[in-house]
C-alpha cells in the first residue's frame, strides 16, 4: 500500500498531479493541526467567555492562535497554489508566534497568568506547538515542485 498519488503521477486525462502535499503524511499533518485548532479554539472560547478581564492580551492571542490553526488546517488539506501559499504563511506565523509568545511568557508572567497554547513554547501541550510549524514548513518545502 503506497501513497495513491505519488508526486509527478498523471491522471487519465494526462494532467500532471504535482500536489503530493495533500496526501499521505500531509493528511496526518492536517489531523494534528485540526486537533490544535480544536484545543486552541476551545481554550480561547473559555478564556474570553469566563475571565477576559484577567489577561485580555493573552486571551486575544489565544483566539488569534486558534484562527491561524484553523486556517492552516484548511490550507494544508486543500490543493492549489493559493492554499499552499496560505499554508506557508500560517505555518510561518505560528512558528513566529510560538517563539515570540514563548519568550515573552518566560519574562513577563504577569501578562500570561495561565497557559495559552503558545506559553513557554507550548509546554502545556508537550511542546507540539513549537515542533508542529517546523514539520509543517518542512513538509511544504519537501512537496514543493518549482514547476507546479
Amino acid at each position, binding site marked *: *500500500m503506497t501513497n495513491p498519488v505519488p508526486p509527478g503521477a498523471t491522471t487519465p486525462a494526462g494532467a500532471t498531479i504535482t500536489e503530493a502535499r495533500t496526501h499521505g503524511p500531509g493528511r496526518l499533518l492536517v*489531523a494534528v493541526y485540526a486537533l490544535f485548532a480544536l484545543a486552541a479554539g476551545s481554550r480561547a472560547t473559555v478564556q474570553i467567555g469566563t475571565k477576559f478581564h484577567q489577561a485580555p492580551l493573552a486571551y486575544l492571542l489565544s483566539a488569534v492562535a486558534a484562527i491561524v490553526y484553523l486556517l492552516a488546517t484548511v490550507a494544508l488539506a486543500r490543493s492549489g497554489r493559493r492554499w499552499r501559499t496560505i499554508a506557508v504563511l500560517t505555518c510561518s506565523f505560528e512558528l513566529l508566534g510560538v517563539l515570540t509568545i514563548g519568550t515573552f511568557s518566560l519574562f513577563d508572567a504577569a501578562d500570561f497568568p495561565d497557559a495559552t497554547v503558545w506559553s513557554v513554547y507550548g509546554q502545556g501541550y508537550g511542546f507540539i506547538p513549537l515542533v508542529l510549524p517546523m514539520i509543517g514548513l518542512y513538509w511544504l518545502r519537501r512537496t514543493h515542485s518549482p514547476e507546479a
Partner: protein
Amino acid sequence: MSNDLSGILIAACLLAAIWTIALAAADRTVGNRLLIELGITELLVLIQLVVAVVEVAAGNQPDSTVIFLAYAVSEVLILPAGLFWSQSEKSRSSTLVITVAALAVAVMSVRMMQMWSTVS
C-alpha cells in the same frame, strides 16, 4: 467520576494507538476487529461524558468545571472525526491519523482525571 472508568478508557485508547502503529508498520489496512475496539472506546467516551455531566449537575465542582466539561464533549468528536479522515484515503499515514486521535483522547482523559482529583 470513577478512576476505574478513566483507567479503562485510557487503556482502550493506548491499545488503539499501539494497534494502529503496528498496522502502519506492517503496511496493513484497518480491519473490523480494530473498528470494534474503536467502537467500544467511543462508547466509553460517551459513558464518561454522561458521568461527567451527571456529577457536575449533582453539584460536584472539579477544578475548572467549564474546561472539564469541554474536554468531555470534545472527546466524543475526536475518534469519529479521526476515523472518517483516516478512511477517506487509505495509506500508512492515514492509519496513523487514528493513532493521533486515540492518543489525544487518552491525554484529555488524563487531564480530566487531574481536574477531578480536586473533588474529594
